[in-house]
């Protein structure tokens, strides 16, 4: 080919640099390349568009047909399907036809500037047969969409709302072990204490030695009855007897005081038995398997896990927008194109007064809701200023859609350093998706209703509100739940509620916002559950009270009787002896007054 057959050293200076013969084949190769491009350009562009769209959105983007008409600056897409990044078998949107007017010149700078897109036959939320999620299945690994998906999922998981613990079994009572009741040992201890007190009092009473004193006083009284008034010794003996009686009375008084204190202690012990019985009631009640109604908020417990989802999804799109449409003019990286080799990162270098890498100046959207119904609803929307470099475009991205039952708008203002993303939508007359109520095996179908969404992400501060209103709510329960007692009770409490007014709010710093969920069902469910369960709970509680009573009442009565008997016996003994002492003292004093004629002798 080089024709050099001379010795190498001698021919080095004459070696030709170019193979002119290869120009022909090279041109042929070039022509083949052009022809292949002409044949396969649409297919390549379609594959590339699908690939880039899938990468950006984190969900499969499928295009049935794409036609490039660069001579007229037009790109036509037919049968566009964008899967939902969050739901496995649902599409985010479908479009029958999209026609884009493209600026051809920026393509030489690898920039895509679309002056206008007209989209027809848009449909939202349609079903699909295969799982179209990509980012959700990547476990946060690959690409910007995967990372954003993982971040938003983690963000949503921070809202740990305690679930309403409604057991699905019957109300039942565990076996009541008498050894775990506190009344029985308390009654036993009280009985022992009473017996001990009785013995102590008896000992003290015997220690008073009232018998000799009384006998001595009786003897003195007999002597005085026969003594004369001048018998000084008898008089003195009488006075001494009175003094001994008084001292004996004082000892009786001290014993009486002691008995009263002891009786008060025993009475306190009896009251302690009542307290112990109440504790046993509480313990026995704790053995009941009752549904808990102690969740901080019934509404939060029931609806927060579901209510957080719309926020999570809107935040996903907002964060994607922030990643792909960052403010400022600094170089920015994005995941490179998919290929067998490592994708690497594509770094973009925006330049002042230059065109952005991507710009969609205007898009007009028209779509039908309920296209198969007799009166399909026609909607129209617009999108302006969607760009990869908001600082270059200089205006925020805005989106709006209006229709008979729809008003929606969004603005992504990434022009300045702190991005502000705002969105709001009210959609009425649509069939809201049914969902399972967490914590209880109930299925809530809101039916047709109205939803409202307000979303504002200002820098790292979020304020968002999500509302669902419906007046024809229907409830369903699973078969296993239907057979349980609790299931029946909850079902009777909830099935009668036909209105739904649910509002969820999020506010605060994005990394740790506050979530508040309120609904008309909160109070209704709680009240009706308590009302319905009240009778059941009362019956169950009476049952456990009866069990406790059967075990402890006999012991309490025995202790009470014992205490009462001891108290009565001790008081009777004291009263009897005191009466004897008082009577003797009275008779002695009377006789001394008779003997002395009322004159007080020294």
């Amino acid at each position, binding site marked *: *080919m*080089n024709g*050099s*057959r001379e010795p*190498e050293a001698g021919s*080095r200076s004459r*070696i*030709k*640099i*170019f*193979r002119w013969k*290869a*120009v022909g*084949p*090279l041109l042929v*190769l070039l022509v083949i390349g052009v022809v292949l491009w002409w044949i396969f350009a649409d297919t390549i562009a379609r594959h590339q568009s699908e690939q880039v769209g899938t990468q950006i959105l984190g969900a499969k983007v499928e295009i049935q047909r794409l036609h490039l008409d660069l001579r007229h600056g037009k790109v036509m897409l037919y049968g566009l399907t964008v899967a939902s990044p969050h739901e496995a078998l649902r599409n985010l949107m479908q479009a029958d036809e999209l026609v884009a007017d493209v600026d051809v010149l920026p393509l*030489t*700078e*690898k*920039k895509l500037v679309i002056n206008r897109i007209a989209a027809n036959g848009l449909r939202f939320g349609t079903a699909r047969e295969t799982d179209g999620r990509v980012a959700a299945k990547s476990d946060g690994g690959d690409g910007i969409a995967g990372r954003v998906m993982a971040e938003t999922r983690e963000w949503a998981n921070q809202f740990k709302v305690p679930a309403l613990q409604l057991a699905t079994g019957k109300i039942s009572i565990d076996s009541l072990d008498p050894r775990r009741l506190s009344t029985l040992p308390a009654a036993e201890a009280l009985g022992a204490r009473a017996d001990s007190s009785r013995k102590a009092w008896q000992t003290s009473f015997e220690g008073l030695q009232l018998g000799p004193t009384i006998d001595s006083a009786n003897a003195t009284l007999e002597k005085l009855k026969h003594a004369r008034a001048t018998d000084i010794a008898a008089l003195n003996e009488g006075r001494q007897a009175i003094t001994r009686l008084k001292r004996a009375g004082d000892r009786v008084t001290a014993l009486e005081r002691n008995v009263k204190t002891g009786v008060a202690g025993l009475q306190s012990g009896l009251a302690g038995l009542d307290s112990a019985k109440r504790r046993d009631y509480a313990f026995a009640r704790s053995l009941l398997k009752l549904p808990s109604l102690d969740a901080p908020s019934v509404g939060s417990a029931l609806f927060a896990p579901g209510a957080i989802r719309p926020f999570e999804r809107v935040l996903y799109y907002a964060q994607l927008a922030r990643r792909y449409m960052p403010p400022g003019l600094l*170089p920015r990286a994005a995941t*490179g*194109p998919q*290929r067998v*080799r*490592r*994708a*690497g*990162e*594509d*770094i*973009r*270098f*925006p*330049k002042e007064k*230059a065109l952005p890498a991507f710009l969609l100046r205007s898009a007009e959207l028209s779509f039908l809701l309920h296209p198969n119904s007799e009166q399909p609803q026609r909607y129209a929307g617009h999108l302006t200023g969607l760009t990869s470099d908001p600082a270059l475009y200089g205006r925020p991205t805005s989106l709006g859609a209006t229709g008979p039952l729809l008003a929606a708008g969004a603005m992504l203002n990434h022009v300045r350093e702190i991005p502000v993303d705002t969105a709001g939508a009210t959609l009425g007359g649509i069939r809201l998706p049914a969902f399972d109520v967490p914590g209880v095996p109930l299925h809530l179908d809101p039916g047709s209703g109205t939803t409202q969404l307000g979303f504002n992400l200002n820098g790292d501060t979020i304020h968002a509100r999500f509302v669902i209103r419906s007046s024809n709510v229907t409830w369903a329960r699973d078969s296993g739940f239907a057979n349980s007692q609790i299931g029946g009770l909850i079902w009777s409490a909830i099935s009668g509620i036909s209105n739904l007014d649910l509002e969820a709010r999020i506010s605060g710093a994005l990394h740790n916002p506050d979530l508040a969920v309120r609904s008309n069902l909160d109070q209704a469910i709680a009240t009706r559950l308590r009302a319905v369960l009240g009778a059941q709970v009362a019956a169950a509680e009476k049952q456990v009270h009866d069990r406790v009573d059967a075990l402890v009442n006999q012991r309490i009565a025995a202790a009470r009787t014992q205490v009462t008997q001891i108290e009565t016996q001790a008081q009777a003994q004291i009263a009897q002896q005191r009466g004897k002492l008082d009577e003797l003292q009275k008779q002695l004093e009377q006789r001394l007054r008779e003997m002395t004629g009322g004159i007080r002798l020294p």
Partner: protein
Amino acid sequence: MFAIIKLIQSLFGALHSEGTPGQLAAGIVLGSFLGLTPLINIHNAVILAALILLNVSFAGGMLGWALFVPIGFLLDPLFDWIGHHLLLAESLRGFWTSAYNTPIVPLTNFNNTVVLGSLVFAILFAVPLFFATRLGVVRYRATIGERVRQSKFYKTVMASKAYNVYKMFRP
């Protein structure tokens, strides 16, 4: 299997061609660009055109390509790292920004970390590769080249039909 036979054929074909060691080394260097950098890029079209138009060993180019494809895969993390540092270097930002906003240049995908990193690496690697390859070919031809040419193995390999295809592009 066919690829291995073809590779061996390319290797022997190039080593025993009438081309000079310099032509063979230049071909391998150009082929290394195809192997080290991601293939579907404009600079590789230029490399391919150069391989066809310049009077270098086309077989050497194919050999270089085949040899350096696996090396390219292995070194991709290194290329990514090089490209990342180059593209985000503060001192080069003005240059990259100008290049990025110049027509046609962005179509080279220079702003991809792996493309730029591998291209820079291939360029820097080209000079030592050229001289090392040329020296190796000279030594080979001077020492065991003739004995290999006379071996049965060589004759068997070169007798296959694939060799005829190669001969269409021999230098």
